């Protein structure tokens, strides 16, 4: 997994509440048993003129310059709600999104981001809307900076906002770690738990 430390980049505001994972990647775009090759299907119902087609809809923000180079998304509350499909995150990572800043995320989507090198940042809605307005006035130059080491977002005007992230999630992103390898260090504890639990709840161990 790619490490995340500090990122400065173009941000694309898609300020709608409840953007669900069916919107981020429709089911029909998940064509192969793979984490790859999904970026073409990202936001396909909004990005292309026809369902299943590939003719770009010029009105959609990610089809416009300079947002085609965006590495940060700004959005509204409950981003990534709905289906657990990790394909939504794989598609975004492949397309080039490295951070998403919203007032709130769907729980499963948030966890999927952390496991794929995308930093989910939660900031107050008023701040996200302010950042969106600043970006829109000059997207080429009004870049946003995200620093995971000190958990801060710096707006184009130099204002700095701090955000919270669970230490385990922060470590995984900063180090680009494999979660299974970290947990396997506790193999002894897992086995000891099972031995105790077998006495308390034997019916679990079928």
């Amino acid at each position, binding site marked *: 997994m790619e490490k995340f430390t500090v990122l400065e980049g173009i941000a694309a505001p898609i*300020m*709608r*509440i*409840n953007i*669900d994972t*069916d*919107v981020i990647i*429709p*089911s*029909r775009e*998940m*064509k*192969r*048993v*793979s*984490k790859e090759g999904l970026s073409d299907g990202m936001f396909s*119902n909004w990005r292309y003129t026809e*369902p*299943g087609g590939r003719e770009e809809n010029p009105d959609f923000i990610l089809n416009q310059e300079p947002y085609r180079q965006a590495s940060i998304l700004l959005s*509204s*509350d*409950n981003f990534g*709600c*709905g*289906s*657990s*499909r*990790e394909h939504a*995150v794989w598609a975004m990572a492949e397309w080039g999104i490295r951070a998403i800043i919203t007032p*709130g*995320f*769907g*729980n*499963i989507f948030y*966890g*999927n981001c952390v*496991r*794929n090198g995308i930093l989910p940042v939660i900031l107050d*809605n008023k701040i996200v809307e302010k950042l969106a307005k600043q970006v829109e006035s000059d997207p080429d130059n009004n870049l946003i900076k995200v620093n995971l080491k000190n958990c801060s977002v710096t707006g184009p005007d130099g204002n700095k906002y701090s955000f919270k992230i*669970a*230490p*385990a999630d922060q470590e995984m992103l900063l180090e680009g770690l494999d*979660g*299974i390898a*970290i*947990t*396997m260090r*506790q193999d002894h*504890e*897992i086995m000891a*738990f*099972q031995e105790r*639990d077998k006495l*308390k*709840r*034997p*019916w*679990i*161990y*079928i």
Partner: protein
Amino acid sequence: MPQTIIEKIWDDHQITDLGDGTSLIYIDRIFLHERTGSVALKGLEASNRDVRDPEQAFCTMDHIVDTTPGRDDNTRMPGGTAFIQTTRKAALAAGINLFDLGDQRQGIAHVISPEQGIALPGVTLVCPDSHTGTLGGLGALAWGIGSTEAEHALATKTLVIKKPKTMRVTFNGELSTGVTAKDMILTLIGRHTAAGGIGYAIEFAGNAISKLSIEARLTLCNMTIEFGAWSGLVAPDEKTFEYVRGRPFAPAEDQWDQAVTYWQSLQTDPEASFDKEITIDCSEIVPQVSWGTSPMHEIGIDRHIPNPADEPNENIRTSMERALDYMGLEPGTPMDGVPIDAAFIGSCTNSRVSDLRAAAEILKGRKIADGVKAICVPGSGLVKKAAEEEGIDKIFTDAGFEWRESGCSMCFYAGGESFGLEERVISSTNRNFENRQGPRTRTHLASPTTVAASAIKGHITDVRNINISKTDQD
């Protein structure tokens, strides 16, 4: 110290406290399906990792499989066959329990999990599927995860999780005739938004919950994800024990008493406190129908489509305008009377025998309206068999419904099948997102009885005006 049921289950599964509210949690049961489980199993193979305790992992084929009679591995979705065959091969190689096509036990993960006794009170159960919270209906702590987390759970039998906040939603009072668990959960989401539950594990409590059948509790918990919640459950009671007893993967008779004693301890202590409390009076609930593109866009059948201009919050107003545009509806239109093109009964929300029985009671001796395409997809092979033994299939087909093989089917477009562009569907499913049931398809969520009644009328209708006698309560 007094504890909630959520904290009790959490403590009984905590292997290590990792600090800052995060724990290494033991996972009792892992369920997979061919859509997202395929990638997880393939990922494990690629990293040369084994499934730890494969006897406690389960896999079904439900998401992409065709549901038309006489089906095989071929799917309407291009490339779908590869998902089915990759999953089968990997599941067999890993030695996990597989409910494959052709096996009568095959069906929707969250329908067969209770049916087989895989979901039990007090277990932790995960599945790379957002509707896993359904199993909270039995008192399980169950939640949806991504494919990478599923790999983690399969390889280690654990997950690293931040402890959720707790919420109690208390439903008091009597449900009126024609009002179901589906209407209860839609009411909660409508009142408290699709983000109202973010970060919470919920206990559903109150005398109205005690009276719900187990299958109705599964429906209620199924849509906790649409409320934004991490999980939701109902404390187990005598009804739960009676439901579980004798099922294939349930505790054997010689372990039964020990299991029941343990399960009886899984009650919230009287003095325990929750981070948030919500109370709803069931006597205020009428049959609910969604009008927009989020489950929070829903109203009582006796109401009119809301006017975005009346909404003070700009974000919500914009989302309402967009939704009405997508749905082709005007503010002020009565919900009762909106014409439909199609009706769908199925999905992990409402495809169990009790759902089909309730819909059949409406359909019996009646015909669906001309021009309406209607489909019923039982939730599992065993649900289908049980319904057929009661003659329910005949009632559906005589009324003009198609009667299908089990699977997720047209709850979403993965099967590659859709009702069509701008077709309006009344649906017993859980999501009315843009393009969810197919490109530009317009979905209205409702209970199976409201779907059946609307199919007969040819427009969205108040099921209470059709003669019925039963509710989801005893």
